[in-house]
């Protein structure tokens, strides 16, 4: 079941956008850290 879920996730366009461009991952991670900070606040 987990394998099926992983296969589905890796086939989505989101996966392609996140892994297909050099700047997507660092940008999302920066926003993730900012969100974490605001959550604490």
């Amino acid at each position, binding site marked *: 079941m987990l394998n099926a879920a992983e296969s589905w996730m890796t086939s989505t366009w989101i996966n392609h956008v996140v892994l297909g461009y050099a700047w997507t991952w660092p940008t999302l991670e920066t926003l993730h850290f900012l969100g*974490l*900070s605001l*959550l604490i606040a």
Partner: protein
Amino acid sequence: MWLEATGLAEWVRGSPAGYPLMITLHAFGMAIMVGLALALDMRLLGWFAGMPYAALQRFLGVAWIGFLINFISGSALFTTQAASKYVFQPGVSGLEFNWVFMGKMTLVFAGAIMAAILQTIVSRDSATWPATSVPGKVKVMAWLSIIFWLVAITLGRLTAYLGA
């Protein structure tokens, strides 16, 4: 560099728990310090006007606990690749000065200094301010604080991806 050969550096670099523990503490410390600093900045810019300044004051000491956690965990992470990644990093023509990390550190300390100044001003003067308005100079400092922290977080993340 001698820092990279210390017992602390070897523990953080080599033990199963060292690096994950330090990077987790670094994220916690950042969230506490930056989160509370941004809350103060936003209040000074007029958001959440119903919140009294005195209520924020109670949390400001906690922000510095976050900064201390960050300083300790960040120093431990720094020792692992002090000269080979953070001060200098491998580039096309050998080791090059790491402007991204140094820029991050400059902005972190600028943000911390600004937070200390704003906390002092709020503690000293806020009783005389109306609930919805603070002096223009203080608003400019609050905007600068937000910019310092946002760019510092961005450069901190880029440090992990630029260079080797």
